[in-house]
């Protein structure tokens, strides 16, 4: 079963208390943790893909306008409480395993090495239908 693990980060305080404002050694510890975490998932043969996303400041919303022309706007990030910071796709034997992986990601070290315990949204990736209808 494949799951997408989405790492949500609070919108509020992103600029004032986000990772960019931590002491360098904390940033280093956080990045080191993520690299090690991805390495472990690769080695366990469970990693399908993982990406970190650029900050929300540069994000744009696109809708099709008249004749399908892209209409690009900035919003509505101001109202959003959280934004997607990155994701993993893992291929695991059970939902429980997906939850274990998510919990480990959630506990990534933050400022002062304190676990962030950030919310990780776990969603099953759509797959083939079961044998019988």
């Amino acid at each position, binding site marked *: 079963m494949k799951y997408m693990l989405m790492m949500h980060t609070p919108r509020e305080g992103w600029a004032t208390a986000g990772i960019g404002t931590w002491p360098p050694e904390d940033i280093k510890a956080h990045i080191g943790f993520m690299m090690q975490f991805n390495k472990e998932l690769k080695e366990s043969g469970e990693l399908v893909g993982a990406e970190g996303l650029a900050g929300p400041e540069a994000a744009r919303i696109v809708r099709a306008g008249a004749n399908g022309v892209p209409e690009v706007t900035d919003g509505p990030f101001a109202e959003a409480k959280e934004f997607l910071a990155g994701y993993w796709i893992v291929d695991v034997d059970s939902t429980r395993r997906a939850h274990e992986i998510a919990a480990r990601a959630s506990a990534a070290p933050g400022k002062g090495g304190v676990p962030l315990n950030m919310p990780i949204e776990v969603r099953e*990736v759509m797959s083939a239908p079961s044998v019988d209808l």
Partner: protein
Amino acid sequence: MTNPSPDAAPEHLLRDLAPQVLGAVIRRFGDFSAAEDAVQEALLAAAMQWPSEGVPDNPRGWLIQVAARRMIDHIRSELARRRRDAEAVIKDPPELQILPAPDSGVPAEREDTLILLFMCCHPALTRSSAIALTLRAVGGLTTAEIAHAFLVPEPTMAQRISRAKERIKASGEPFRLPSDQERTERLGSVLHVLYLIFNEGYTSSSGRDLQRADLANEAIRLTRALHHVLPGEAEVTGLLALMLLTDARRDARTGADGELVPLTEQDRLRWDRHAIEEGVALISDALPRGAVGPYQLQAAIAALHDEATRAEDTDWPQILALYGLLKRMSDNPMVALNHAIAAAMVHGPRTGLQLLEALDTDKRLAGHYRLDSVRAHLLEMAGDHQAAIEKYQRAAGRTASIPERNYLNTKAARLSAERRS
């Protein structure tokens, strides 16, 4: 060298030879893990060379020789690495030339396939790694093919396989058949892994990636090989029959736009008659022999479906009796769900719905879309369309399959439209 005949499929030849070659190399050198890598390289070399240069007169010997050279290279580099305690690595340096007589040791070859299956489906492995290792070591598939079939990156699959081999090494499993006491349980693991490979291929054949359907063929091929080695094992025969009888319906299972077509609405002329005949013959042969197990019962049920020319000709009382037996044999809520459907077909939807109530408290089914979708069908049968619509919609929200979600949403939408008109 002989010229390849147009109908000779080198790919199938390679896959059939893979476990025999691996068995021979392990018997000579030990070290399952390194031998498996060496055989994989030999298979890749053959896949490159044989199409242009022709299949050698003794393909098995050719593969063993190439794999043995790789093993010797591997051992040499190991020796160089551990020069000081070389004696721990190997006692007798192997000679460079290994030329087994053609078709030598046929019983050993069969036994090797069996030993390899037992190893690759070792209970210490996770399901996904047992599946991957079986496909590579016994099925002769490349890592790239397996990765493609499971839609994961090749390095991930390579890692999964190498971890599986490490685990087997750590388990200390010797290269021989398990003891009589262990045998039944271990055979159960092998059959389960083959069943999972089949399911992966069968269920995804409606998906965008037709190549995944090869997994169903691959599972049938491996189960056929196992049946060939153990013709007296009724559950092996049962599993092979179940696969053939289910796979016979594969093409009819999806419509023109890839949508799911339920059993009752399938065009039965599209079912594969040859597969059905073979499956029916196998299960008819296995059932009277005594030890009836779950695979045989499921095959018998599949045979009853396949033998009905029209959906309304289905022998539901017989199917209900078989699900009754199956339910007593295995504590599986999915079996209980199918039993409820069969009961509804025989005694009416209310009986089926009553049976479903007992499943509401089963934690294993909590929130599972199948309970909702079966209940929706039975409510529809009972004429309670409003309740059926709600259950169809709830099931659609819970399934992890897009074709299934489309099917369930369409069912709900049709009933809603009927109510309005």
